[in-house]
């Protein structure tokens, strides 16, 4: 592998990794506050991309307005999911909550398929199509948008959690949800906020990545899984650990595909993330068992 190729694969790994990090941030947000893994997280990503496309293409709104509206609608869906499904089943077991969020994921995906069909949809790139040459590698400007968005979003989440009252209340819930109500924090409200924020993050991710990777009614399954892997590497705790997990996964995937394995080519890319997932889960299973 030449130096140029190395940079090229690194950049594509960083771009993919940023996408996984954004999805993973949503998982971390909800899990930290409510101890629920939201299997519908990938669907927020799909909604962000698809709704942006529909608003732009059918309603003829400007790109920026479409994206903002799409993100807000996705946030509403997140609120509805928490309010209608999760909250109604408050005393539910792990198994029930897993099944409920899977049901929600399948439901949202099915509706999207009914409404918008099965074709992949593009969004126009935010700043043109001309690749930038950097250290011998070609970088699509949208890749910079994706990486930049991830950095900005991670910073925003960090400052939100550390310096605002609501953010600190969320953090309190994640540290000890039994003690939080003693100081006047409403865990139900925090659960709702966590779902809305996770939906926002997911939808932003969907809108930013659609110009580069296209979007479709079923992108949520694999993206959700990769995001979960990113969040698991980070241990579902700090946003920075999740971002690091996502970037690590993206880079590993990128170089694994680059290495030519004969018949085992890019078709197995998705399997790599799952192998990484299983390895991580097994390596940390003792610690995870203690937390559960």
């Amino acid at each position, binding site marked *: 592998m030449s130096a140029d190729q190395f940079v090229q694969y690194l950049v594509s790994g960083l771009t993919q990794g940023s996408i996984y990090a954004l999805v993973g941030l949503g998982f971390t947000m909800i*899990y930290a506050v409510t101890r*629920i*893994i939201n*299997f519908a997280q990938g669907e927020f990503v799909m909604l962000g991309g698809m709704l942006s496309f529909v608003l732009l293409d059918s309603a003829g709104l400007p790109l920026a307005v479409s994206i903002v509206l799409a993100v807000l609608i996705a946030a509403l869906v997140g609120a509805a999911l928490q309010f209608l*499904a999760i909250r*109604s*089943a408050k005393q*539910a*077991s*792990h*198994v*029930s909550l*897993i*099944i*409920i969020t*899977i*049901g*929600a*994921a*399948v*439901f*949202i*995906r*099915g*509706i999207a*398929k*009914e409404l918008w069909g099965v074709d992949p949809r593009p969004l126009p790139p935010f700043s043109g199509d001309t690749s930038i040459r950097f250290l011998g590698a070609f970088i699509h400007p949208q890749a910079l948008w994706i990486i930049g968005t991830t950095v900005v979003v991670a910073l925003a989440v960090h400052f939100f959690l550390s310096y605002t009252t609501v953010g600190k209340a969320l953090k309190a819930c994640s540290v000890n949800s039994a003690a939080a109500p003693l100081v006047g924090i409403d865990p139900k409200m925090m659960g709702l906020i966590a779902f809305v924020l996770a939906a926002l993050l997911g939808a932003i991710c969907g809108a930013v990545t659609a110009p580069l990777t296209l979007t479709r009614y079923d992108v949520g*399954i694999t993206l959700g*899984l990769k995001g*979960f892997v990113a969040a*698991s590497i980070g241990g579902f705790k700090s946003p920075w650990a999740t971002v690091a997990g996502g970037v690590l996964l993206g880079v590993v995937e990128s170089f694994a595909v680059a290495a030519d394995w004969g018949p085992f080519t890019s*078709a*197995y890319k*998705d*399997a790599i993330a*799952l*192998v990484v*997932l*299983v390895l991580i*889960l*097994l390596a940390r*299973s*003792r610690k*995870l*068992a203690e937390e*559960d």
Partner: protein
Amino acid sequence: MEVIKRKWAYAAVAALLIFLILLPFDWFLGRYTFLMVFIGINTIVTIGLCLLMGYTGQVSLGQAAFFGMGAYVSAILSKTYDVNPWLAMLIAAASTGAFAYVIGYPVFRLKGNYLAMATLGLGIIMYILFRQMAQYTGGPDGMGGIPYLSIGGFVFDTPFRRYFLVWFVCLVIILISQNMIRSRTGRALRAIHTSEAAAQSIGVNVTQFKVKVFVLSAVYASVAGSLFVHHLRFVSPQPFDFLASVTLITMAVVGGLASIWGAIFGAATIKLISDEILVELGQVNAKLADLDVVIFGLILMLVMIFMPKGLFVSLRDAFDSWRKKRALRGVKS
């Protein structure tokens, strides 16, 4: 009260058996025979899932992977290598069971959410393998020409014959599972579901029992997969994707997670919705035929929110308490 309850249960089972025996005849519901074979096959997988989820409290989001392994091993051995289909079915069940055993120990060190994701990942890996290993599996296009099962000179070459074969296997599996639930193993499993710590403190080897049920559910799924390919004589990756795993869970949820007989109800309801009702509606408006996913999602959410024990079990409990009330009123007057 127990006696009344048991009397009713026996009557219900007897009625079900008579119904199942008469169903495939043309003067009764013969046109559903082909569909009923699929319902029987799905019931077998669902029973395994019920044992795992309902009785032991462990989630598997990758059950379609074991279903697919049984299907592919049977298909490849009996078609490509001319192995006797029964022997192929046996090899498929043994190898799927062994596979579940090997991955079971590491996987069941995980709990709850992590277990769900690990099995989900496993399911997707297997689906990718089915699609990509085209030289063996025929890839996305699938492979056809798989032989029928036969005993001596008797070939199971009509849906009518396969109906009795599949439902015979299904009833045997129901009996085995019922017996297991009432045995020491069954009590250990329910103890694990209620509290792992308590089960462990009275000497139940928690991991060992979980792996045991996991292996059993994988073997059930594999047998069902073998029956599936010898019924359809064609295999492709699509019936074993993530959605298939979700559909199987929907069947278990409708059946009532902790009910063996409920599995028949769940499998039949879901299959009727997707293969009959929606197909009929699809002739009115093609878009309606694709609604199955939306409906399954709704069912999963609604049943879990309002009847966490599952639809069939909740209905049965309601019937029992209605009878109890009526009996008490009889005593008073």
